[in-house]
């Protein structure tokens, strides 16, 4: 992150309230392109909300108040007339729990392109293989692509969900604690695949531990009770935090 990489997503004074409770209290923050940005902090800090705002998944939630801007490549994703479906194809999301759709492995991975109207069989097969390769799952499932996705192990299901997002060739990949339910081996596989994925897109991830954050971060931001306490490039937040609260959290004094 030396020569100032291009900004992919910029959150600008984002305030968000749900049922009268302020979840985000004016967050301003940038995620660079082709790097892993880590959003960490204790539960209830607004990490998930911030991610869901980036691809407008909270649009259908009632009783919310939102102000500020979310800019993707400098364009406001909440601008009137902005194409929400196109946004969600550009900004993929993987959830904390593996959520395979009903159906086979093949159907899951190709779901996005098929929803977008892709019908060409050989095209879909190519997407299927490439996405599973990139999610480090191809070798394990290539002989049973038409098995139900639900028959995979938890770790495999989560990589399947990563593959499903990658099938859309997203410019940004949002990962909300993607390894929270996984064993260390599966976690390592997911982390490894992130390292190669970041050469192709911007990754924003909520890690499931401070240790994981420190392992994978190119840039990290500490979110506490809806407030962005501080952010920095590299691993500075974990080795030399400036704010006392950050220090206390990364050294394990609370959280």
């Amino acid at each position, binding site marked *: 992150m030396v020569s100032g990489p291009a900004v992919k997503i910029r959150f600008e004074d984002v305030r968000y309230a749900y049922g009268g409770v302020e979840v985000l209290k004016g967050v301003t923050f940038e995620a660079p392109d082709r790097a892993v940005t880590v959003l960490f902090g204790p539960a209830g800090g607004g990490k998930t909300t911030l991610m869901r705002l980036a*691809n407008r998944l909270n649009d259908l939630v009632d009783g919310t108040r939102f102000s500020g801007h979310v800019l993707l490549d400098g364009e406001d994703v909440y601008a009137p007339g902005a194409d929400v479906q196109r946004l969600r194809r550009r900004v*993929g999301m993987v959830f904390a729990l593996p959520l395979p759709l*009903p159906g086979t492995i093949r159907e899951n991975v190709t779901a996005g392109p098929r929803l977008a109207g892709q019908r060409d069989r050989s095209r879909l097969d190519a997407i299927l293989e490439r996405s599973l390769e990139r999610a480090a799952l191809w070798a394990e499932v290539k002989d049973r692509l038409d098995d139900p996705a639900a028959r995979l192990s938890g770790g495999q299901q989560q990589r399947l969900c990563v593959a*499903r997002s990658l099938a859309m060739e997203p410019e940004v990949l949002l990962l909300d604690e993607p390894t929270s339910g996984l064993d260390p081996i599966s976690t390592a596989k997911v982390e490894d695949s992130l390292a190669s994925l970041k050469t192709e897109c911007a990754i924003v991830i909520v890690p499931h531990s401070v240790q994981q954050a420190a392992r994978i971060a190119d840039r990290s931001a500490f979110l506490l009770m809806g407030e962005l306490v501080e952010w920095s490039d590299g691993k500075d937040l974990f080795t030399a935090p400036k704010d006392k609260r950050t220090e206390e959290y990364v050294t394990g004094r609370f959280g």
Partner: protein
Amino acid sequence: MAARSRDGSTIARAPGGSSPRGSTSRSRALGQRLGFVLLGLASLVVVVPILLVVITIVAKGEAAIDWEFLSAMPRSGMKEGGILPAIVGTLLLTLGTALAAVPIGVGGAIYLSEYARDNALTRSIRLAIVNLAGIPSIVYGLFGLGMFVLFLRFGTSILAGSLTLAIMTLPIVISTAEEALRAVPTEFRTVVLSLGGSRWQAVKTVVLPQAMPGIITGVILGLLRAAGETAPILFTAAAFYLPRLPHSPFDQTMALPYHLYVISTQVPGMPESVKFGTALVLLALVLSMNVAATVIRRRFRRKRTW
């Protein structure tokens, strides 16, 4: 089990040395057993009528059932021949009911479950559905007469009868279908949206297929009720005696429940076996639909992956 509890009470008495405690626990065990017996009897009470009904109808009606009874027109004042027009009439009325009630009911359920926000309009729609379910069937019959037979000039016809039955069936279809749709985890919808799909795509590709067993069950339950009803078709579709098959939706028709009513109360000297035979056919029709619903539900559920 019984032996152990008897032993247990003697052991319980020993350390405390107080006999009252033992007798309390024994009487408690006795009370519990009595309770189970009473509850068991209560559930038996449910089984007895259905067994009696089925056994009586099969025993008395079975003699009437032969190929002619199922495939011929009634003859000599319905005392002889078959009940084909009534069977066909009931099937057609049920089919007509399905054609009207399924698209409207399932469509309404999709709207309520997937699109409607919680506002005054939605609440009043729900209130209407609940109240629609509580209206006596004869009132539907009168409504059908006024609305479809007279005002829309459909005449006494399969069309008017089917529409009347459809309105009666709608609340069952809507509420069971909505329940089935709501039972599909929200996360599936979120995933489809996050992949750039539209809300309708989420419904069409994931939610509806997953809810299908529940919806089918609801539809069949609703149709079962429609197939067996007499009051709603009394003024709107049913013919007292019409020994031919209907030619168009605007024809009157005989129907099993009404035919049963007619031959049981309006025609003197009707042979027992014909009455019970007719009841048996109606019962078999309804029960086989019920079995079909169960089979379909099972088959779909086995394919479910969550």
